[in-house]
């Protein structure tokens, strides 16, 4: 190991096959490939299995590559659980919570970043503390509260308790702090109301943070399982995709068709992973911001 920081010239060397890589470089590349292969393996197995025939999925020892890849499992999976309906439910849950979280977080984040008012620090601390509260701690009374509000067994019950969250407020405050006061003052001088200032001046200035929060909120609520399972009380019509998937497994126990389960899982994984690939730059930045500046 010769150096920890390498000038750009050395990096160019790697691209040219004429020059031999040092043993350290070769080892590092091997380690990176090994880590990436291990990380990708379960997902690759999931996709490969979804393309196998039922016989292939039950073979001992397991076959890795389907002899003739086919999409039969994808065609069949909708017969077992109403997949279209579940996808629709998941989309409604993820999109409405995300939209609301963006608005509520921008508003509260703006107040905490740019206003001075009494008990500001105390209120901020109280809200942020909820970020560290495991949902199970509040699950039992929350289930009763949504019952009182007539929300149980409905999609509204899944959505309404999640329209605001502490992480969003924290993230927005961090980024709105960096918006120059002069920009805000200028808009006020022009007679803009505070809500206009927020949504027309401040929000466009923190677009990367908003993109990150869109991804965070969408993925979290697309994937969320514990609360929908509890509040929907077995109303299968309203099940999001993740709950329908778990029902697919219990169906699968009798039918022994692993391919079906893997096809369903592949479909459920697609929206959050695709969104991540599109917005990943912002997500990494926001994780860094919440970790370092926090």
């Amino acid at each position, binding site marked *: 190991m010769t150096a920890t920081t390498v000038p750009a010239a050395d990096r160019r060397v790697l691209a040219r096959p004429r020059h031999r890589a040092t043993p350290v470089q070769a080892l590092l590349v091997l380690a990176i490939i090994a880590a990436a292969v291990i990380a990708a393996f379960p997902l690759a197995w999931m996709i490969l299995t979804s393309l196998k025939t039922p016989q292939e999925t039950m073979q001992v020892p397991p076959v890795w590559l389907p002899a003739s890849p086919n999409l039969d499992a994808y065609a069949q999976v909708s017969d077992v659980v109403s997949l279209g309906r579940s996808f629709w439910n998941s989309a409604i849950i993820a999109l409405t919570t995300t939209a609301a979280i963006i608005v509520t977080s921008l508003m509260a984040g703006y107040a905490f970043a740019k206003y001075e008012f009494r008990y500001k620090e105390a209120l901020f601390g109280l809200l942020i503390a909820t970020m560290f509260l495991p949902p199970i701690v509040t699950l039992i009374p929350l289930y009763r509260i949504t019952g009182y509000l007539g929300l149980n067994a409905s999609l509204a019950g899944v959505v309404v308790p*999640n329209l605001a969250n502490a992480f969003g407020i924290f993230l927005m405050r961090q980024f709105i702090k960096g918006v120059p006061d002069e920009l805000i003052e200028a808009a006020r001088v022009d007679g803009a109301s505070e809500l206009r200032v927020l949504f027309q001046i401040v929000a466009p200035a923190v677009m990367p943070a908003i993109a990150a929060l869109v991804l965070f909120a969408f993925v979290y609520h697309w994937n969320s399982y514990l609360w929908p399972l509890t509040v929907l009380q077995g109303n299968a019509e309203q099940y999001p995709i993740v709950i329908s998937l778990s029902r697919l497994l219990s169906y699968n126990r009798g039918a022994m068709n692993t391919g079906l389960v893997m096809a369903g899982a592949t479909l459920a994984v697609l929206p959050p992973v695709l969104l991540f690939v599109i917005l990943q730059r912002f997500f990494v930045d926001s994780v860094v911001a919440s970790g370092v500046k926090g």
Partner: protein
Amino acid sequence: MGGYWGTQARDEHTSMHSTQHRSAITMLAPATGLIGVFILLPMLLTIWLSFQSWSTQTGFETATFVGIQNFIDIFASNSVGRDFKAALVNTAIYTVLSVAIILPLSVLLGLLVHQKLAPGGVFLRTVLFSTYMVPMIAVALVFSKLYSPTEGPLNQILGWIGIPPQTWLSSPQTALVSIVLLNVWQQVGYFTVLAVAGLTQIPDSLYEAARIDGANPVQRFFAITLPLLGNTLLFSAVICIINAVQVFEPVALITQGGPVNATNVLTFHIRRVGIERAQGGLGSAMAVTLMLALIVAIAALFAFARSREGKTQ
């Protein structure tokens, strides 16, 4: 709301403050109201219910005060107490194992992503982080197949390198560890990104100076990298602990807490008691105990971090 610049008659300073006050209320009302009703109020109710006998299927008005009886029950030597204590111990083991595997691994992978010697760091970060986007329920489904003793590829791979087949999820000795590994696979990418953020903060000049002093890479890691990652690791540990106590999907989906209670963890157990069996008082006492255990664990972690900081300075 409304621009305070229009209210010229009043002293600018007081005007600014009162207008800001009103605007602050408007801006904070939605988020504070929602978090208040759906998180803070339930938190207070959980504490109140932990001292009540109450069925989750009835209104709060049917609760009757029983003092600390719920806490006595969940620590008693009957089946209620045995199940809860098993869940508490399982959760503690699960949490300690998760932190003990994820943190060192995240630093190791973070170094791989951060290094500039060889290409591929950003690619690795993308692959690792994408696993964090996968719904836990899909992770559980896929791993239940990977772990399958006969049709799963993991035992096959172990066989190639001469390791006997493992029981994975089907035996009490290995089931909990198998769920920890599944959790590590899903979460390590997030903690790697945190580690990289910490590594980026360490100035290169420190490494230059150490190299001039003749420190080898291993010495540099223990003298510079690890101590300066302290705050990052503390933050990672706290998040890792809070994530670990939330483990639910693999247990609910695959093991149902078994075999023989080996994977009965608190989130699963509290929901089973408090929602499915509708024993709201007992479930709330368990939730309060979990909360207290978390506070103690995190306070101990901070005390440990501070004592180490004191030693190195």
